[in-house]
C-alpha cells in the first residue's frame, strides 16, 4: 500500500473496492461473473431524484389549486337596529274626479274638436257627428217605434180576450156547482127518508112481533103431549104403589104362612113386572113425544121471527147503502164542480210582454228625442263641465262606441296620486300613514302626505291601489312620481343582512367560522348555526339571540357558493 502523505493524496477507493475484494473472494467461491452493479443503481437514483422533483412540482401545483378553490369570505358582527319596512312604488297624478261624455252609439264621427290633455270649459264643443247618419238613425228609430206601437196594440187586444174568456168560464163553473148541489141534495134527502122509514119498521117489528097460525097448532100438540106424559107418569106411579102394597101384603102373608117373604115379594114383583115395564115404556114414550113436540114448537117460532126480521134488516141495509151512495155521489159531484171553479179562478201565468214593450217604447222615444236634439244642434256634442280631456275613445270616420266617448277629468275636485303595491305589503301601510313623494326632474319632494285610501285592484287581486291626496297646485296632472313610505319597528339587538341568511327546509341558518387543526395547519371551515327570524324586511333580518355568542361573527359575503363544512379563507382587508 502506498504511503499516505496527506489527506488529499489518499487513494479514493471506489465505493465498490471493498466489495471488489469481497467479490474476488466470492468469484473464487462461487465462480460466476457478477453483472454490472451500477446501471440499475444509477437509474434508480436518477428516478428518485426525478420523483422528488415531481413531488416538489405537484406540491406547488396542489397548493395553487387549493387556494383557487377555497372560498374567500368576509365576516361581520350582528348589529343592533330596527327593521324598518320601506314601501316604494311608482305612480301617477290623476284628477280626483273624472266624468264621461257619451254619445249616441253607432254614428260616424265627423270631426274632433279636442285632443287629450286639452282643457275644456262648459259648453265647449268636443266632437261632431255625421248629420246623414243621424237622420238615417232617426228614421230607423221612428219606424221601430211605430212597429212597437202596433205590437202593443195587439198585445192589449189579446189580453182583453183572455180576460173575457176567464170570466165566462168562472161564471159557468159557479152555475154548474149550484145546480149540482141542488140535484144531489135532493137525492140525498130522498135516500135519507127511505132509510128512516126502514129503520122505523124494523123497530116496530122488534117491539111487537105478530103471532103465527102454525105456531098455535104446535102449541096445542105440546100441551096434549104434556098431558099424556103426566097421565103416563101417574099411571106408572099408581102401578108402582099398587105393586108395593101387594108386595107388602104378600110378605105379611108369607111371614104369617111361614114362607120366605122374599120369594113372595119376588113372585109379586114378577107378576107385576110386565105391567110396570109397559107403564114405564108408556111414560118414556110420552116423554119423548113431548120433547119432540117442544122442540118442533121452538124451531118453528124461531124461524118465523127471524125470517121477517131479516127482511126488515135487509131493507134497512139497502136503504143505508142507497143513502151512502147518494151522499158519495153528491160529494164527488160537488168536489168536481169546486175544482172547476178553482180552475176558472186561477190567475193566468205572468206575462211581462206588455211591460217590456212599454219600456222599449220609452227607450225608443228617448232615442228619438236625443237624435232630434242632436240634429237640432247640428250634430255637435259639447262638454257639460270644466275639465281636462283625459282620453278620447273616438276617431274621425269611425262610429261612436257604446260607452264612454270622451273622458274628462274634473279639476274642481282636486288631484291625487295613485300607485300600486303588492298585497303582501298591506301590513306595513294603512290609511293615514305618512308618505313622501319624489317627483321626477327638479321638482321638490313632497313630505308629510297621508294615505287617503287603500283598495284592491279589481283586475289583479295581488295588487293594492294606494291613493294619496295632493295639496292644490302641487303636482301636475298626469305627472309621475315615486312614493316612499317607511314603517319603523322596535329595535332588535341581533340583526343580520338578508344576504347572510341561508334557507333550508323552511328553516334559516347562518354560516360562522370554525377553526380546526388540519394537516396544513389551522384551517377555517364554515359551520352552520341555526337561527330563528323574528322580523325581516328586504335587506335585514332580526334573529333570536338564543343561539348566538356575544360578538359572534358570521360569514356575510363569499366569492363562491358555500356550504357548511367547506374550507374558507378570510378576505384580507
Amino acid at each position: 500500500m502506498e504511503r499516505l502523505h496527506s489527506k488529499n493524496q489518499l487513494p479514493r477507493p471506489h465505493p465498490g473496492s471493498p466489495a471488489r475484494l469481497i467479490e474476488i473472494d466470492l468469484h473464487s467461491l462461487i465462480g460466476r461473473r457478477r453483472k454490472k452493479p451500477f446501471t440499475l443503481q444509477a437509474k434508480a437514483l436518477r428516478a428518485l431524484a426525478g420523483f422528488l422533483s415531481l413531488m416538489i412540482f405537484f406540491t406547488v401545483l396542489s397548493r395553487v389549486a387549493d387556494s383557487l378553490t377555497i372560498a374567500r369570505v368576509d365576516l361581520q358582527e350582528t348589529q343592533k337596529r330596527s327593521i324598518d319596512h320601506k314601501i316604494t312604488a311608482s305612480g301617477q297624478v290623476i284628477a280626483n274626479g273624472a266624468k264621461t261624455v257619451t254619445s249616441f252609439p253607432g254614428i260616424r264621427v265627423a270631426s274632433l274638436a279636442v285632443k287629450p290633455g286639452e282643457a275644456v270649459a262648459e259648453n265647449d264643443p268636443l266632437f261632431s257627428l255625421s248629420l246623414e247618419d243621424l237622420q238615417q238613425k232617426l228614421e230607423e228609430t221612428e219606424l221601430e217605434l211605430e212597429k212597437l206601437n202596433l205590437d202593443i196594440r195587439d198585445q192589449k187586444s189579446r189580453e182583453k180576450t183572455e180576460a173575457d174568456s176567464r170570466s165566462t168560464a168562472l161564471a159557468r163553473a159557479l152555475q154548474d156547482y149550484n145546480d149540482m148541489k141542488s140535484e144531489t141534495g135532493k137525492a140525498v134527502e130522498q135516500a135519507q127518508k127511505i132509510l128512516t122509514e126502514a129503520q122505523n119498521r124494523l123497530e116496530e117489528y122488534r117491539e111487537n112481533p105478530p103471532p103465527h097460525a102454525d105456531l098455535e097448532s104446535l102449541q096445542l100438540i105440546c100441551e096434549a103431549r104434556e098431558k099424556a106424559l103426566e097421565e103416563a107418569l101417574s099411571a106408572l106411579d099408581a102401578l108402582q104403589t099398587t105393586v108395593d102394597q101387594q108386595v107388602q101384603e104378600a110378605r105379611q102373608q108369607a111371614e104369617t104362612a111361614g114362607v120366605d117373604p122374599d120369594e113372595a115379594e119376588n113372585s109379586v114383583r114378577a107378576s107385576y113386572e110386565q105391567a110396570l115395564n109397559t107403564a114405564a115404556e108408556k111414560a118414556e114414550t110420552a116423554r119423548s113425544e113431548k120433547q119432540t113436540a117442544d122442540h118442533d114448537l121452538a124451531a118453528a117460532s124461531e124461524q118465523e121471527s127471524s125470517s121477517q126480521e131479516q127482511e126488515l134488516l135487509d131493507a134497512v141495509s139497502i136503504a143505508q147503502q142507497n143513502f151512502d151512495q147518494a151522499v158519495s155521489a153528491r160529494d164527488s159531484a160537488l168536489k168536481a164542480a169546486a175544482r172547476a171553479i178553482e180552475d176558472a179562478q186561477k190567475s193566468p201565468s205572468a206575462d211581462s210582454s206588455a211591460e217590456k214593450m212599454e219600456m222599449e217604447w220609452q227607450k225608443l222615444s228617448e232615442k228619438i228625442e236625443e237624435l232630434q236634439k242632436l240634429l237640432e244642434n247640428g250634430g255637435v256634442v259639447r262638454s257639460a263641465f270644466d275639465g281636462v280631456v283625459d282620453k278620447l275613445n273616438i276617431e274621425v270616420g269611425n262610429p261612436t262606441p257604446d260607452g264612454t266617448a270622451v273622458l274628462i277629468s274634473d279639476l274642481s275636485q282636486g288631484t291625487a296620486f295613485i300607485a300600486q303595491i303588492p298585497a303582501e305589503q298591506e301590513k306595513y301601510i294603512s290609511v293615514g300613514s305618512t308618505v313622501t313623494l319624489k317627483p321626477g326632474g327638479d321638482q321638490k319632494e313632497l313630505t308629510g302626505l297621508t294615505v287617503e285610501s287603500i283598495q284592491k285592484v279589481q283586475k289583479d287581486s295581488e295588487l293594492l291601489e294606494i291613493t294619496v291626496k295632493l295639496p292644490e297646485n302641487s303636482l301636475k296632472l298626469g305627472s309621475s312620481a315615486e312614493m316612499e313610505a317607511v314603517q319603523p319597528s322596535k329595535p332588535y339587538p341581533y340583526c343580520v343582512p338578508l344576504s347572510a341568511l341561508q334557507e333550508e327546509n323552511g328553516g334559516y341558518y347562518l354560516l360562522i367560522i370554525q377553526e380546526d387543526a388540519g394537516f396544513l395547519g389551522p384551517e377555517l371551515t364554515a359551520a352552520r348555526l341555526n337561527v330563528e327570524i323574528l322580523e325581516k324586511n328586504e335587506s335585514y333580518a332580526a334573529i333570536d339571540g338564543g343561539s348566538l355568542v356575544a360578538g359572534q361573527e358570521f360569514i356575510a359575503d363569499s366569492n363562491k357558493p358555500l356550504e357548511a363544512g367547506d374550507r374558507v379563507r378570510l378576505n384580507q382587508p
Partner: protein
Amino acid sequence: MRWKLALFVLLPLAFLVCSPVLFLLTGSLMDPGELSQYLSPILSQGKGYVAWRLVPQSPSLRSYVELLLDSPEFFAMFWNSVRITALILVGQLLVGAPAAWGFARFQFRFRKTLFTLYLILMLMPFQVTMLSSFLVLDSIHLINTQWSVILPAVFSTFPVFLMYRFFRSIPEAILESAKLDTGSAFQIFLNIGLPLGSAGIVSALVLGFLENWNLIEQPLAFLKDKTLWPLSLYLPNIDLAKAGVAFTGSVVTLLPALLVFLSGQDYLEQGITAAAIKG
C-alpha cells in the same frame, strides 16, 4: 428439470406475494364507482363479499388527479416524512457509524457487556419502551415536535449492529498500515473505515430508510399536531368515499421506498452475503 420444477412452485408463490402490490396498482386506476361496488361489503356495510378485478372495468386517472392536484395535505405529510427520514439517516450516520467503529475496532472495558445491551435494546419492541420514552421526551419538552420521533431513531441500535459487522470485516493489516502513516484514529476511521465499510453503511441507511419511511407508532404517540404527521398517518384517515385516493396515495408512498431499495439493492446483497461468509 429441477429448476423448472422450482420455477413451477416458486412462480405462483411469488405472484401470491406480489398480488397486494398488483391490487394496489389496479385499485389506483379504478373509477370511484367501481371501487365502491367492490369494497362496500367491508367499508360501508354492503351485502355480499369483497370482489376485485385485475383489470379495471373503466380505468381512470381521476384518483391520481385528485391526489396530486386536490390534496395539498398529502404533500405536506410527504415532506414531513422526507424531513423526518432524512434527519434520522443523517443522525444515524453521524452517531451510529462511529459507535459501530468503536465496537468493531476498539477494545475497551465492558465492550461486550455494552454491545450485548445494544442487542437487547435492539430486540425490544416499541410498545415496551413507548411509555418510558414518552415520559422522557415530555420531561425535555420534545413531545409534539418532530424531534421526538427523530432523536430516538437517530440513536437506534440496529444500524450500529449492521455497520459493526462490516467494520469487523476490514482486515487488520490495512488498519495497521494506516496507523503507521497516521496515528489519528479519527483519520483512520474517516479515510479507511468509512470507505471500506461503505457497503454496510449504505445497507444500514437503506434499511433505515425503509423502516423510518413507514413509521406509524412513534408519530401517532408523540405528535398531536396534524401538521407534523408523516405520510404513514395519511392513509388511516381515508374512508370508502376516498378509497381511490387511498390506493393512489399508497402507490405514491411506495415509490420512494422502491427507488431507494433499487438504488441500494446491491449493497444490501453484498452485506447479507458478506455477513453470511465472514460470520
